[in-house]
Every structure is written in C-alpha cells, then in structure tokens.
C-alpha cells in the first residue's frame, strides 16, 4: 500500500499543496468574496485601520483600485458612480466617473468622484454595492442604469447559492488555485483569442442560454420589469437617506436593416423621467450623445464608449450638477470660472487616490 504514493505522485501533491497554501497566505485578499459572484456586501471594500477605504481588484469582477477616507473631509463633494461595464470604461482615467471629478474640480467644486462600477452587474448586484457605498457619506450617488445585465444577475445569484452548498460539482473549484487558474484562462486566453461571435454562438458558461433569453420577448419583458423594479428600489433607498441621486439611463448603438446606425434607449429614458423629482435627477445618455459622431464615440453595439463619449457624458453630468448646485448643497463659487486664478485650481482636492501598481 505504501508504494501507492510514488515519488512522482508526491511531487504532484507537494506542488499543488504548496501552490494552494501560497495562494491562501499571500493572496488572501484575492480570495475574499471571490466565490460570492458579486453577492458579498464586503467584497471589494476594504476598510483600513488608518481610516482609509480601499477598493481593490482581484483579477475578477471587482472595482478599479481606488482609495478614499472613510470620514468625508469637510467641504468635499463625494460622488459614487454605481453601474456596470459602461461607466467602468476601458480604464479608470478613461471613464466618465474620473473625468467628471476633473470637470467638477475645474468648476471649483472640491469633488471626489469614485468609480464603483463593475462589469456585468445589473440592478440587483448594484444594490449590494449601493448599500455598502451609502455607509461612506456620499454627497451624491450617480446610478448608471441599464437593464442588460439582469439575466446575469440572476445567474450569478444562483451560482453563489449553489457554490455555498455541499454539492460535489463545486468541490474542485473550491480549491482556490484551481478556480484562479480557471478564471485566468477564461479572462486572459479565452476572451482575447476566441472571437465574440463564436463565444456567443456556442458558448461556454451559459452564454447560449443568455443569448436565448435575450431573444425571447417574454423573457425580455420579465427581465426589464425586474430591472425597473430594482432600480426604483435603489433610488428609493438612496433618497431614504436624503442623498441626491442622478439616474443616468443607458442607450446603445444599434443598426437597422440598411446598416444605418441609430441610438436606442429601450424605454429606459421614460423610466428615468418618471423617477425624476425632488432630489432625483435624470440624465439621458441618448440625449447627451445624439447629434454626435456616434460611430466614433461608441466602442461597439453594446453601449460601451470610447473616451470621447465618456468625456461628453462627464461634461453633461457636470453641467447638471452645476445647474442643481444649490439643491445639491454645493456652495456657490467665490469667483467665476473665467476669472479663477491659477492657484485656486491647484488648491482643489485631487479626488480619489489611485494606489500605485505593485
């Protein structure tokens, strides 16, 4: 029986054991909340002893790495932008949450704009992020609303519940190093190398079901209704704390039968308008981007924008905040923008700090 464990077998056990141990010791933060599929309210927010809050990324679906002080400094206008891959953008400094902070600071507002967008998050998972974000004294919440990820929200909820169970199907993936490797291959090899059309057509990881669901009118209607209801709840949750909200409704680029491009909001603008009222403002992405060279500002047909599009949105949001300055409790500027002295610019806070890459 002793000969069952051969030297080669020992090498395998030792290598895998060491890898797992090393990962759990040195990448503990990476593991935290990793198997919750976005349903862990702590995942992504790490409160440090020195009073800073760190938003981190673990290679999966997390926030861009950013830090801010837990107690909001007096006079700082703290904005949290909650949403999916569209507000997240192609990079922290290329997306409109960051650009909005810059715009506001140029308008003499000591703004701290934090990007809390995570790709694939629908209204349901955004609600979890929002619940946590509300504990960090925001001055304004920007809810970027899209109904596209509702299906994914449900799927990930199901997965998170399954994963917590005893089912042997998940035993292998409970080994951190295996799960990490699987995700790494998916993100670093599968997505970049296999064209999207193939991934969507045949795919792996329920994409076929997602596509099928996306084409069934009944499913679409049910999904949109759920997304709407959750968005309404999210707005109500923020307003219950007397925090102002800007609801940014998503639009997407589509193509008609004659290959003409057009923008469509899938009825989201109507929802945004219906919710607008005291303390709730609405910015329509479609209205902001109409009349622009949409072929250039959109990255693809799913609503993702190039930096130019993000810049336009940031300016529109800045204008909205300027317009509602008093209602938002932002003190009037001492001097106009045109007259602002150079030193005033430099005196404004620089927004959230971005940790340096290790």
């Amino acid at each position, binding site marked *: 029986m002793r000969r069952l464990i051969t030297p080669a077998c020992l090498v*395998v056990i030792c290598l895998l054991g060491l890898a797992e141990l090393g990962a759990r010791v040195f990448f503990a933060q990476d593991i935290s909340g990793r198997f919750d599929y976005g349903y862990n309210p702590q995942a992504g927010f790490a409160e440090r002893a020195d009073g800073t809050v760190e938003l981190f990324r673990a290679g999966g679906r997390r926030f861009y790495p950013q830090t801010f002080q837990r107690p909001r400094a007096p006079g700082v206008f703290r904005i949290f932008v909650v949403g999916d891959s569209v507000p997240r953008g192609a990079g922290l400094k290329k997306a409109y949450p960051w650009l909005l902070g810059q715009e506001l600071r140029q308008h003499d507002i000591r703004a701290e704009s934090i990007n809390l967008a995570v790709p694939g998050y629908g209204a349901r998972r955004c609600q979890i992020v929002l619940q946590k974000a509300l504990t960090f004294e925001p001055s304004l919440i920007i809810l970027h609303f899209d109904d596209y990820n509702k299906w994914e929200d449900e799927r990930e909820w199901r997965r998170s519940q399954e994963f917590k169970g005893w089912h042997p199907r998940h035993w292998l*993936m409970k080994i951190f190093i295996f799960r990490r490797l699987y995700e790494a*291959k998916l993100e670093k090899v599968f997505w970049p190398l*296999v064209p999207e*059309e193939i991934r969507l057509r045949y795919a792996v*990881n329920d994409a076929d079901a997602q596509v099928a669901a996306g084409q069934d009118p009944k499913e679409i209607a049910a999904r949109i209704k759920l997304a709407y209801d959750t968005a309404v709840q999210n707005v109500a949750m923020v307003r219950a704390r007397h925090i102002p909200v800007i609801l940014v409704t998503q639009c997407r680029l589509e193509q008609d039968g004659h290959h003409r491009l057009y923008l469509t909001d899938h009825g989201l603008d109507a929802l945004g308008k219906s919710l607008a009222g005291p303390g709730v403002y609405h910015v329509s992405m479609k209205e902001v981007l109409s009349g622009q060279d949409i072929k250039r500002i959109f990255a693809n047909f799913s609503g993702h924008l190039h930096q130019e599009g993000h810049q336009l949105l940031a300016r529109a949001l800045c204008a909205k905040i300027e317009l509602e300055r008093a209602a938002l409790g932002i003190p009037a500027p001492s001097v106009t923008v045109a007259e602002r002295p150079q030193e005033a610019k430099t005196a404004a806070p620089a927004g959230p700090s971005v940790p340096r890459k290790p």
Partner: protein
Amino acid sequence: MSFISWQYFIFLPVIIISYWLLPPRRRLLLVLAGSYFFYGCWDVRFLALVLATTVIDYNCGLSIAGRKNRPWQVLGLALLPAAWCLGCHLGLPAAGISDNLLLISVGLGLAFFGAHEAIGLLARGRRPKYYLVLSVVFCLAILGFFKYFNFFVGSFQSMMGVVGVRANWALLKIILPVGISFYTFQSLGYVIDVYRGQSPVCADFLTFATFDAFFPQLVSGPIERGRNLIPQFEKGADFRESHIQDGLRLILVGLFKKIFVADNCAILANYAFASQTTLNGYWAVIGVVAFAFQIYSDFSGYTDIARGSARLLGINLMENFKFPYTSRTPSEFWGRWHISLSTWFRDYLYIPLGGNRGTRWETLRNLTIVMLLAGLWHGADWIFVLWGAYHGVLLILYRVVPPFNRIPDKDGAWTWRDVLAVPLMLLFTLVGWAIFRSPSVSFLAAWFGALGHWDSSLGLSWESSSLWLLFHILPLILLQVLTWKYRDEATLTHVPWLARGLVYTLMILLIVSSGEQDKEFIYFQF
C-alpha cells in the same frame, strides 16, 4: 453517467474500494450491479436491451458449444428483459414503459425461446450454424431498429419521391440507446468466436453478463473480444499497487485529452462546421484541424479513461489508438485508429468475405464493402456512408496506384519517404474528417469551395483563433512526443520521476483551467 461527470468520480472510488474489499466471487456481482447502475443512469429502459443482448448471446454461445441450457432455463433468461421492463413499469413510472412495450418485450422473449428450442430439434451438426444465425439476426434486428429504422425508411421515401411515388410513412420517434453499436458488436464477436472455436464458451451467466455490460467499455468501447476479457473475469485479479498507479495515470491522460484538448478544439470546430457560418480558406482549415484534434482527443481520451477504470479493477482492456496521425498509409491508419472496431470488421467481415485471398478485384470489392459498412456503423446518415466510401477509395488508391502502393504500411523504422508520406496521409485524413463532420453534402461542397477563397475579410478573425487552437494542441503533441518511445499513448514510466511529477501537475492544472464543463463524448452517439 459520463466519465467526466462528478457522479462518476464518486461512483468509481466506491466501486473500486468495495471491489478490492470483497471476496473474489462477489466482485463480479458488484461490477455487474455497478455496470447496470452506470448504464441505467442514462435511461433505465434501455437496460432491457443490454439484458436482451446478453441473454441471446449467452444462450446461443452455450448452445453452439453443445452445452445447451434446459428449456425452462432458456425461457427464464429470455424473459429477463421483460421482467426488467415490468419492474420499471411498476416501480419506476417515470421511466415511461408503456403496456405495449411490456407486451413487445414478452413477445420478443417468447419468440427467441421458440426459435432457440426449434433449432434444438434440428440435427446436431446443423445446430451451431443456426444458433449463430439466430444470434446475429436478433442482435442486428435490435441494432437496426433502434439505429437505422428511420434512416432506411426516410431514404426509401426519398428514393420513391425521385421516381414520383409518394410514400407518406410516419417516422418513429426512436431514441438511440447509448452505446448500442458497441455492446452489440462485442457480444456478436463473442458468439462468432465460439462458433469458430476461437474462444472458450462462458458457461457462467454472471461472468458473461459482466463481460457484456462491463461499465468502463460499455458505451464507447473498446469493443473487446471474449477471449481477452472473459478469462480475466473468471480468473480474477490480485490486488497490486501497479493496478492503481496505471489506472490513475490512464484516467489523468484521458481527462487531459478530453477536457483540455477536445472540448476546447470543439469550440472552433463547431463554429466552422455550422451551416450558418461563412467560411473562407482559413476557417475551413482551422475548422478541420480543430475537429481532427477534437475527435481524436475525445475518443482516445474516453478510451484512456475506460482502460484506466478497468485497470483499477485489475482488468486489462485493449489499446484503441496508437498515434494515428503518424500513419503513412490508410491501412496503417486503420491499424492505429479505433483499433478495436477496425479489427472487428477485419475479423468478422473482411476475412469472411474473402479478405485479400481472392483476385485483386475481389479484394477491392471486399475493402469497399467493409468501409461502407464501417461508415454506416458510425451513424445513420449518408454523410457517414460517404466518409466510409472515401476511406475505401483511399485504401484502394494505396493498394493499386503508384507511387502510393510503394509506401510500406508496416510499423517499421522511419525513412526519408515517411517525411512525405505522413503529411500526405494526414492531409487525406483531414479531408476525410471534413466529410465526417459536415452537416450536409451541400455544406461539404461549400467547405471545398472555401478552400479557394483566401480572403480574410470574409468571416471572423482567424489569427487569434489559430493561437487558441495551438494553445490546446501543442501540449498534446508534447505529450505524444514523450510517450512515443513506448508506443503507448499513456505510458510515461520511462520519464524520470521528477519530470513525470511535473508533467502530471501540469496536466492537472491544464484540465482544471478548462473549467466545469460536462460535455458528452462524440462516440456516445454511435
């Protein structure tokens, strides 16, 4: 229950541990019960078919050898499938066994009993031949009905339509029982061997039933010979550490081939061979190369897992693949690809037809017949017949036409000629896979047409997809280089232990990197 499902990885250790803890005589009972459970996980109804094949061939084998059971024993065994159907009907209403099905199973049991006993009334010298015919007729009737009934009826209707006759026969909704071609051929092979005196008869029903339903090779082979497997069951194996080591190694290699190589190549092959895909030359090539690696890794991976599972029980199953893409000629290819099937066709069809003992034309005729039937064995579709015909033509080409007929197909030392012969044969094989995988003849024409259009603006980017393909086939090629020395695709014992440990670790990591997929094996459908 698939070999790559989590259920199998609970089922297998339970069987293995219980097997080695039990006294030898009880082990067979455990393996048989485990095999029926394994098969029943797909569809309990079709266990009646496995039982029917077992009962028919067990009785016919005994009777051929002149050791005929008493009539009441034959009747009791013949009604076993019906008893199983009745049990399911009463105990498992969800199995969906109707009253009609129950009556059919009783009727078939009685028909077999009647025919069997009628043959027993013939003169002693004539009986073996008729028992053989009885076995072949019953087994092929079951196979033909479940696998080919709709195909032949549909083809007949189409033919009638061509000559202007409308035949509106409704096709039946027949579910193809998993592995029916495999266990039917295995069982038939045993009866033929007994008839020829090449295999001892198995008098113990438990042993024979285990041979017929042995779970590692029940659904996709290798199609074993009675003379190899039955003595191993009869003799029983003593526990040795090497059984466990070899078994685990084979299973690991099989999982690597299936999960890492086959399933990932399938993503590209499925795209390239979908009827709605716009193909260009690049995608036609990527698709067929991906499919070549998919089908090879899928099936040889299955075989490795099957051999590994059997090895854990101390049983040796035959090799089914020996580096088939290094073949120089079609006959060498068929000596390396799905060896258990090609040798089955050789032993039980090609040689009885006359093999290569007659004139050159008779040999070519025999080759064509065998390859057409081998194509049809793979599926009830004309595209498989076309694939078989293509390989028949290749075999003829390499026998008749110079310079192809000068290429030796013996597995000897490599010469400079192999540098040309192997890639050429690989090219022919790839064309064969394009036929095999095409969803229709019109798609096949489009595939050949695409080879003339090397315009990358048509279709998706092929560059990154080629990298994906390379990423998955290179580790397999490296593994084959490592195992080449021992001419066994899963033997790594000559590699130093440290390197072996690293290779195993890498294989495990590559397997898990491909995730939680639970895809079926291609050969289940045959």
